[in-house]
């Protein structure tokens, strides 16, 4: 750990070398490589897929409703005859964007609050009571209040789609940072009594450097777990929001929504739940493996091995 403190004195060239080290280690992690490969594939599928498969995800072909897989509709059609493959692509764009940004927001807020509360004893009480407050708030009424207060102003200033996107990310972020904060704080409380932290403090390392250099790298693994679980939660929560009228308009597909809508059709058209279900699970799984690989790659103790 102490070698990290000496790193800052090194040049930019050396710094880059460290990241090469990380990459080298990452490359040796088979799961991480497969995960990253799959994630890139999913990104290509949802962003470039529509160029190849040009059916409009919102186009209703009522004569073709409830069809099973065929050459015209490889994943079948829904109850209005909309093409499921096109909907899966369009849904993925929204779900991945919402999942990643909302998770990122929750993680940043959660980690920030957790580290500050754990490290600075004087702020601990206040921040943890704030966390208790947020944990205790009744989510549904809170959401209804948020819609009432912010939907129209956001829609007016960012347009319907961007406005709703901001709202959803904000809502998911603001209601899901607390577990991360509690977990990170718990780890920090234990970490700051460890020898290497005491040693670093005794040589007069200022608090911000203590946090960034010594504390954060050591709470990375619970954060990574929170991140992967957070993506799954965000994708599902987004679909729950649309039932409150808080999400995207109802003809706008997302993975969570496709899965929910398909649930009732489980017996008749199982492909309607299998594909969105697989898409969500495998995306989360791939992020999990990337996270695993990154954590190993960033840990200098493992990197050497």
């Amino acid at each position: 750990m102490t070698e990290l403190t000496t790193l800052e004195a090194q040049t930019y060239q050396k710094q880059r070398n460290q990241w090469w080290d990380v990459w080298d280690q990452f490359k040796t992690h088979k799961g991480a490589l497969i995960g990253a490969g799959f994630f890139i594939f999913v990104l290509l599928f949802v962003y470039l897929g529509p160029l190849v498969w040009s059916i409009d995800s919102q186009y209703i072909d009522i004569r073709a409703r409830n069809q099973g897989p065929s050459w015209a509709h490889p994943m079948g059609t829904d109850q209005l005859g909309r093409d499921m493959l096109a909907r899966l692509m369009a849904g993925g764009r929204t779900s991945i964007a919402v999942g990643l940004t909302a998770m990122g927001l929750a993680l940043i807020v959660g980690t920030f609050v957790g580290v500050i509360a754990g490290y600075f004893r004087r702020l601990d009480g206040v921040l943890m009571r704030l966390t208790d407050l947020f944990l205790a708030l009744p989510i549904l009424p809170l959401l209804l209040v948020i819609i009432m207060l912010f939907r129209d102003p956001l829609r007016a200033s960012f347009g319907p789609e961007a406005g709703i996107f901001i709202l959803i990310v904000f809502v998911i972020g603001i209601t899901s940072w607390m577990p991360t904060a509690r977990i990170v704080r718990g780890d920090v409380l234990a970490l700051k009594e460890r020898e290497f932290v005491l040693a670093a403090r005794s040589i007069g390392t200022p608090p911000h450097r203590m946090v960034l250099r010594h504390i954060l790298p050591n709470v990375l693994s619970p954060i990574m777990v929170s991140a992967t679980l957070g993506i799954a939660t965000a994708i599902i929560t987004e679909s729950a929001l649309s039932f409150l009228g808080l999400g995207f308009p109802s003809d706008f597909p997302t993975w969570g929504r496709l899965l929910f809508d398909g649930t009732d059709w489980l017996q008749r058209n199982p492909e309607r739940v299998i594909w969105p279900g697989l898409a969500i699970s495998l995306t989360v799984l791939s992020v999990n493996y990337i996270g695993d690989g990154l954590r190993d790659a960033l840990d200098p103790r493992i990197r050497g091995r």
Partner: protein
Amino acid sequence: MKLRHLMLGSVAAIALSPVAALAERGSDGQLNIIYWQAPSTLNPYLSGGTKEVESASLVLESFARFSETGELVPFMAEDIPTLENGGVSEDLTSITWTIREGLLWSDGTPVTAADAVFTWEYCTHPEGGCAQASYFDGVESVEAVDDRTVTVHFTAPKPFPYTAFVGSESPIIQAAQFADCLGAAAPECTDANFSPIGTGPFVVEEFRPNDVITFVANENYRNPDQPAFASVTFKGGGDAASAARTVLETGEFDYAWNLQVDPTLLEEMEAAGIGSVVTAFGTSVERLHLNQFNPDPALGDIRSTEEAGPHPFLTDPIVGQAMSMAIDRPLLSEIGYGAGGQPTCNVLPAPELYASTANDDCLVQDIDGANALLDEAGIVDSDGDGIREYEGTPLSVLFQTSTNAVRQDAQALIKQWWAEIGIDAELRNIDASVFFGGDPSSPDTFQKFYADVEMYTNNFAGVDPEAYMANWLCSDIPSPETQWQGANIQRFCDPAYDALVAEMSETAELEERGRIAREMNDMIMQSYSIIPLVHRGGVSAHANTLGGVRMSDWDSELWNIAEWYRLDE
């Protein structure tokens, strides 16, 4: 489809066969009913929800109920009072009911006229917040002429006097049980509200609010052979699809209510052969309201009020007509409601006497006709973006409704059809508790109507449309002054219409009332401020082993549960 009709027919045939009459009380064991919304109380005067009213109808009764054909059937009364038999006074200001000879409450005490008088006092108490108070509107007094005779006096002639004490919404409660529960004390009588004493076929054994009710047969029920079931479990909770599954696929329950499930799925579940789907039509119409005032968000707080001025294009009937022509109602009905829906062109579709036939052209979709109509009126796409302009304003509408899978599908379909005639729609769905909640501080209530078009279902209770047709008076437009209360949601205003409403309230003759109601209906239709879509019926399912179900949409679905019985397999 054919199979279902055959099966229904056979069930009906068995219902009429003499087998039913041979049943004796309690011989058929246990009946399981599932309502996916659970009742929260058994006092329908404290909660006006359908689930509470229908569950209470097993216990509490009124003088008469409406059968599946909308006819009155005497329950607690000897017969139905009419002008002919002298039960309704010549000047239409009173109606006299006679209580059945020897009618007993389930605790064994006799029912007297005083109970009816008490019921009226209970519901009209100013501090009680009685949910069914409108059934006693225009009632001047309720008089106990003698122990078995009750006269209801009205303040003005009442052409349709069958409101108070008729139907499941205004049942008679026992004076002795509720004596201390008047007014503000009403909510404190938990025991009485949770297990009211009634005259119905069942008695409450245990009531768990919002969860489950268990009933047992009423030992003092007036018909010694009924009910055939010894006990009833009335379970609540879940959702419509899972409720349908328990009756149609797993057979755990005998009767499931209000199955708003995709018709394709319902048919598939029915094919399992365990249960059947039944429907009954009342007066519910799924409709679009076109805002006649300007809802432009730029107008801030005055939008959708008179101050905001008329809507830039929806006040022109041509636009509304084109929007209506573009809609394929039979398809909407088939996809969304199946057997539980019929395409309609009227906001007043039933009873037959009141149903107009003047607007039936709308049943056939005519996109070309709609395009031609708009072209002729000079409403064309002048800037080439695929959306027509009306005097410079693009025909873009915000289309809102409550959150409900069927409604969202209908929204998507209508959006596509409108796109084909050059009208752009942005869809929005709002949580039902907010949309119908009426909170004046929320921008999303259906009364505020901060949108161009909205879709929901409305209906009227009972069989008389007078109050319903009075919804569209100029004075009933919601506005900030009235805390956005008012039933004239689309903000329609026409003095000629107001005159017809006044005329109807003074007309007693049935045929004449029918003519006026049809005229009013046509007037609204031709203004194209309301676009009716689907005449909706109730959809329920019962096990194939359950006989005697005669589902009525004019009253509680369980109105004749005393006659239900178990078919031998």
